[in-house]
């Protein structure tokens, strides 16, 4: 389906989610963002998931990590960097 040129596509909405949460969208963009949500159930689900993720992640601090998790994460990141050919 070809969307109205005035409207956002799902892809554009995804790119703007952070700005939406941080209230950094220009009023006209925000209106288009919200209008897209009014007819796109998938994007509403996506937005709700992002909101919930931000809420849960916002509670986490270094102190709340279980023992060993920090080392596991550092190892995972180093492995990921190596796979991409970056510095270890």
């Amino acid at each position: 389906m070809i969307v109205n040129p005035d409207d956002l596509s799902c892809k554009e909405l995804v790119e703007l989610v952070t700005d939406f949460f941080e209230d950094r969208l220009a009023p006209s963009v925000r209106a288009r963002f919200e209008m897209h949500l009014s007819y796109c159930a998938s994007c509403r689900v996506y937005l709700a998931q992002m909101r919930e993720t931000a809420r849960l992640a916002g509670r986490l601090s270094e102190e709340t990590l279980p023992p060993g998790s920090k080392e596991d994460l550092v190892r995972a990141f180093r492995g990921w960097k190596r796979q991409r050919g970056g510095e270890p």
Partner: protein
Amino acid sequence: MIAYKFLSAGATGPFTGFRWPVPALGRPGAWVEAADGRPDHGIHACRLEELAFWQDNELWRAELADPVAEGHRQVVSARGRLLERVSAWNEDLARRFGEACTWRARDRSVAALLVPGFSEESALLAGSRSLSELHATAKELSSRTGLPAALAAYLAEAIDFLLTGDSPCSTYISARAAVVASGGKESEFAAERQGQARWLAERLGLDFPGAHELGGHARP
């Protein structure tokens, strides 16, 4: 200014999660003010002509304090309150609305296909008497090529969403089909949305300003 506001279940703002104070004991809900006083951060509502753009679970009649600014298919004020719920807007009407929009898209497709000579495809769509029959026909035609396939794909998708209970998406697709049926005139999208809003306003018992009628189709 009197305007209309769609909210999620429980008088909740669909984008902010804000729980609106609702009318009680015959009195309007409490006034709600924009957090920082900026009108563009303020209370959003829409006119009757814009109803189709903002469908959600609940529809409320709202009052916006002056000055009211124009937004993108909405109006915005620094203060607003809920006056009363439009109880005629419910799941059943939302479904009937989606169906009416689909039949309207079907009728426009039938007419649009006749002009370039797709009389067989036009007749097949015109002969569909139930939504399930139209769905099957549209699915079959969507595998063809050119304009018949394009229009049929819109119809099939509009019905797909209707069957999942997603009328807002279905009515959006029906309005987009109007653009295709018109040969690509983007203005037909807004015109169709306004026609949809007129249909809604009539069923809701709301006084709609002059606009074109949404289809003469007998179905609901």
